[in-house]
């Protein structure tokens, strides 16, 4: 497992949409390197024959009937909105086209 470096952190910060200063990137790279180092033993703990457990208590087929429940008014939906216009959430220009 490669050690985590500053460029890695910069890339991850971008993926995670957290703006970071150069100083922060450096500091975090150092802190994370220590943490990553301490957890890497985990990859040796279990062989291929050990299955992964994603849910501690196994349940299956938990469903809901297709019946309409409560809805919000536009006012309720927008009650915490940092910016809104004509019943919709307003956001600044989007750079990336989909």
């Amino acid at each position: 497992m490669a050690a985590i470096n500053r460029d890695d952190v910069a890339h991850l910060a971008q993926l995670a949409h957290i703006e970071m200063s150069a100083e922060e990137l450096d500091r975090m790279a150092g802190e994370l390197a220590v943490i990553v180092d301490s957890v890497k033993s985990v990859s040796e703990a279990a062989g291929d024959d050990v299955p992964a457990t994603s849910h501690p208590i196994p349940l299956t087929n938990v469903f809901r009937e297709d019946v309409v429940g409560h809805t919000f008014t536009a006012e309720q939906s927008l009650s915490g909105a940092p910016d809104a216009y004509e019943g919709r959430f307003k956001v600044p220009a989007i750079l990336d086209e989909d």
Partner: protein
Amino acid sequence: MTDATLSFEEAMDKYDPVLGFEVHVELNTKTKMFSSAPNVFGDEPNTNVNEVDLGMPGVLPVVNKTAIESSIKIGLALNCKIAEKCRFARKNYFYPDTPKNFQTSQYDEPIAYDGYLDIELSDGTVFRVEIERAHMEEDAGKLTHMGGATGRIQGADYSLVDYNRSGVPLVEIVTKPIEGAGSRAPELAKAYVAAVREIVKNLGVSDAKMERGNVRCDANVSLRPHGRERFGIRSETKNVNSLRAVEHAVRYEIQRHAAVLDSGEPVIQETRHWHEDTRTTTSGRAKSDADDYRYFPEPDLVPITASREWVEELRATLPEPPAARRKRLQADWGYSDLEFRDVVNAGVMDEIEETIAAGATATVARKWWMGEIVGRAKNADVDPGQLGVNPATIVELNKMVEDGKINNKMASEVLDGVLAGEGTPAEIVEKRGLAVVSDDGPLLEAIDAALAAQPGVADKIRGGKIQAIGAIVGAVMKATRGQADAGRVKELILERLGVEG
């Protein structure tokens, strides 16, 4: 600057296309995939939502049982295997229309996989498209870009978000790479999407209206030199909103890729946007297969086990498959193979069925749809079903002709009027003063005048050449501005001349 393209023929001469499709089907459940908010089109923004759809802190998803059943049915109709156990996964990315900034979808455990669809092309050739998988996921909200000149995203000052659509259940159907279509690729593309649309509509799990976004297609195209095994680099084209657009977009991309390859450049792996107005694609963002979505199993949902009993129960509820339905309709309607195939290829089979249900005979329905509407639709460059003709109109028009109120030519004019928004057929006939001249008097006048003007023709008719009557009929029709019933005119001429018809 528009991209260079080769002609389609040249492109096909040099290269072999490989296709792939991701078709998203919007389910018509009453509620959303993971919340109990209503799954309804339109309505005031941000009112068909609750805290779950807005991705508020602390919320959790709960799976819609009907959506699971619909997904399994789609899988069965696509001849897929249904997974005995499958899970949901989080697809992590940030975008304002995605309220949690991850989409709950399925990753390596789709509910259905390894299926196929046999597609019949217009000449009867059958092509098998292999289905890789069908999986469940949720839709995003709707973004409207404001402030820029064209309402497009580039140059927009800001965007507005409506989450009504967020969380609506989607089934994504992914094909395996489609090889060997050759120059029939665009045709096959359209036929494939049409077939999927038909299936889900027939199952009753989706409204299947492409113009409403109920069925959406992303088309992947790549080219390789003939004989090479390795696939070329592909582009993905989005915003393909109708069947004709599917065909045109695939054709265009083939032509564009060919020009790029011919110039010695590599094709850029990217997402492209289809423009119906210019019939071209433009570059979107670079599509990277390394888009790091950091998939992991959705911890807030538990696995789905589809027992074999449950699957068989659902299989038993499946309606008649479209192919079988087509055979039945053809038999019911009494059309010949060619007639029926023309109807299917023209895309008006459903419309004919509806028109018959509204009261017309099978013959009359076909006459109108194939004879009058398909041509007009082609001129207007829309699919026949979108021209704006409804079955009731046809029944009304046809009745007027059968009652002798108007003739076929007039009926055609009235149809134009209906399409122009002038009103109902009855209103238009009234307004334009169209009526078949039913009084023999004016007809006889016109006939006498025509006979007098063409004595030679009159002689021919008397001499037994009945076909020559056409010239007289024509003159009479002209004189009456087309408002005579041609059959009656012919009768009267013969009477006048003392000839048996």
